[in-house]
């Protein structure tokens, strides 16, 4: 690997390893009065936090790099791993740099975790972000506008200055650029997955959870440029797959590496979906809150946490397979993940109707043994390559 790319990867890896939020503390220390607001997966309107001059900080649990000492005492064995590592991070003071926390509407676990937070940390700002499940602008839109206005007021109070329309437009533009860079990266990976292996791309996405958005966009653009010049990365005879189910509790990095070593190029996925929740740009003209509302109603990705009455999720998945020239789908969901596991029969039915091969397994963010997954993914990869040749 050339030095330029190696330096970028090293930087992204350092950010990935920063469970203590040293990056956030450094950002806050750089200027007196700076504040940071944490958020769990998947969608929160980060533009409002940024427009208040605060740093949005994405929290994705402790992965396989955190020993759980206190967190397990708060959760029964049949609950997923993300909340226990999140509580562990907070009780071990690793999240002390955060001045507030947002808990997005994704499932009952994250919803109830917001209440646990309020009980455990009564002096800190906490809010459950209940997005609309009604997409009529006059109904769900009106509700969402009120919720966003409340958030805007809250952030203005926290920051000690009101969030102006101009500041919000500026932040919308900033995030439009950030999402464009992510879209470009996904398109580049789909074309040349060997140049942008997912185990590496993922590190650069994760950097967006800690860096200010402008800095993250620069990092993504630099990676796009540098990885493309990496001449020792050659096309290999691997199968092209879409990964589904990883939108909340994140897989350990070793799992992504294992899939690649098992012969799979990931050409689309739902990792870190919140960073690219809105599929298109949010308009800059007009009322910025209205624009955020409208973007949520009409530009949101098809996600398991959203109400999808007409089989949209299945169509989205089949379309993703076709658009990205994938040969199969790997359902790779965290154990006990209601949104991912409940919808799996619907998605597999859609794939079966379309004649698309699929396989499935589960993980936990701290899974450390990948031998079985490697064997299963390798067999799947071999079988779909055989089929596609037939």
């Amino acid at each position, binding site marked *: 690997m050339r030095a330029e790319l190696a330096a970028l990867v090293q930087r992204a890896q350092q950010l990935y390893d920063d469970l203590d939020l040293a990056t956030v503390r450094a950002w806050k220390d750089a200027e007196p009065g700076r504040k940071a607001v944490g958020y769990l997966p998947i969608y929160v309107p980060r533009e409002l936090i940024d427009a208040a001059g605060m740093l949005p900080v994405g929290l994705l649990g402790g992965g396989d790099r955190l020993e759980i000492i206190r967190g397990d005492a708060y959760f029964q064995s049949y609950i997923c791993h993300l909340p226990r590592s999140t509580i562990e991070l907070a009780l071990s003071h690793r999240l002390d740099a955060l001045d507030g926390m947002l808990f997005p509407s994704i499932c009952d676990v994250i919803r109830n975790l917001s209440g646990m937070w309020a009980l455990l940390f009564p002096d800190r700002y906490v809010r459950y972000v209940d997005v609309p499940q009604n997409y009529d602008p006059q109904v769900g839109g009106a509700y969402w506008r009120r919720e966003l206005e409340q958030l805007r007021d809250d952030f203005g109070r926290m920051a000690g200055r009101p969030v102006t329309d101009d500041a919000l437009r500026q932040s919308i533009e900033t995030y439009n650029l950030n999402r464009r860079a992510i879209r470009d990266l996904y398109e580049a990976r789909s074309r040349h997955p060997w140049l942008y292996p997912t185990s590496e791309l993922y590190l650069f996405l994760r950097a967006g959870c800690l860096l200010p958005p402008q800095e993250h966009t620069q990092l993504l653009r630099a990676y796009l440029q540098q990885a493309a010049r990496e001449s020792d990365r050659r096309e290999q005879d691997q199968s092209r797959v879409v990964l589904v189910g990883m939108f909340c509790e994140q897989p350990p990095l070793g799992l992504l590496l294992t899939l690649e070593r098992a012969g799979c190029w990931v050409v689309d996925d739902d990792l870190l979906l919140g960073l690219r929740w809105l599929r298109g740009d949010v308009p800059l003209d007009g009322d910025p809150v209205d624009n955020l509302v409208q973007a949520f109603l009409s530009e949101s990705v098809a996600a398991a946490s959203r109400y999808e009455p007409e089989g949209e999720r299945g169509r989205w998945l089949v379309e993703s397979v076709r658009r990205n020239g994938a040969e199969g789908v790997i359902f790779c969901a965290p*154990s006990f993940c209601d*949104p991912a596991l409940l919808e799996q029969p619907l998605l597999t039915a859609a794939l079966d109707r379309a004649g698309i091969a699929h396989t499935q397994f589960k993980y936990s963010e701290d899974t450390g043994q990948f031998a079985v997954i490697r064997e299963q993914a390798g067999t799947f990869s071999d079988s779909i390559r055989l089929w596609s040749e037939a």
Partner: protein
Amino acid sequence: MSTASAPKPDRAADVQKEESMRLQKQMIAGHYEDLERAPAEGRKVVYTFVPGNLTELLSSFDLLPNLPEINALQSGMRKLSGDYIQEAEKQGHSEDVCTYVKCDIGMLKKGNIGPTGRKLPPPDLLLLSYTGCFTFMKWFELLRHEYDCPVAMLHVPYQSDGRIHPHHVDYIVQQLRTEVIPKLEQVSGRRYDEARLQDSLALSARAEDDLVRVLESAKARPSPIDAYFGGVYYIGPMFSAFRGTREGVEYYRVLRAEIEERVRQRLGPITPDGPMAEERYRLVVEGPPNWTSFREFWKMFYDEGAVVVASSYTKVGGLYDRGFRHDPARPLESLAEYCLGCYTNLGLPSRVDLLEAYLRDYGADGFLINSVKSCNSFSVGQLLILRQLEERTGVPGGFIESDLVDPRYFSSGNIKNRIESYLQMLEQKRRAPAQP
């Protein structure tokens, strides 16, 4: 969420058959008969959920509700759920997810024969009241795939801060006007009749008054009711098809009279194993019951003289004991406030406050949490609820684990052992000399 028929004792002669038990059995059986006959009689059927149910609105359109949660728990009580769950798992449903869902899907795959042995009709509409439970949303997405019928979605915002905000009420009312009512009109072929809805809501409020008097009778010593195991029978008509009906009003009038008579006579609760002779422990219980071993579970309490005087589970279909009543003067707003206030739609701080109040107001000796694997809406945070309640009240709590309708997750010996150990601890605490 219960519309179980009245307790069936092993020794029928030992158990007093109250008029209310006979009435409820008749009402529930009649409802399943109505459902079975619905297609032949041209009546339309709406599947919906217990929390946030809109029974009065449905009946104002002459629509029949069918509640998959209740079918699942009834299947659990009748020992049918294990096979249904395995059928669903064979068809690709994960072992990790809600067993109500899998029981329902399994029942459907095996012919949709309801718990009373009668064929359940397919839905003409799925009324997805997304209140206090994420799984509801995916459940009806799955059912829509099976039935290919229209869905009316009602999103009820979560009360994370324990307050009902005016714009949340507005949001729900707007959804009722623009999404739910038009679809009910379409399915039923009738126009929305607000006067009819108001009449029904007035009946609801009358029955709700009586239900509250029944639940609050547990403040008496001895308590004339068991507010958990017995409580699921008392809430049955209210939480299902009979809110807002004359039958419902009559049922609660009769029930209240019976309970008030028991208070006058200083009698304890009636259980399937006979009347509770001595009230040794007064408990508050958080979490749903296990349905597959419901009687065995109840008997574990009965054998120890433990009476549940208040429970959170009996509030999943509405917190009437905290003052809410359906209000015919504000029909849609009142339905919205009802949905917002259901127990599982409340944030954890509100749930802890409520349980603390129950411990105090009902003079409880202790509290138990039955944590069910299937229900993250209830279960996530229960270990913190336990700590918080112990810290606030000084009363030690007990914690047991089971499931709703998956018999594989009811470990009888383990649960009995835990209950006995917990009650022994309460006994020791009671006998210990008071701290100076």
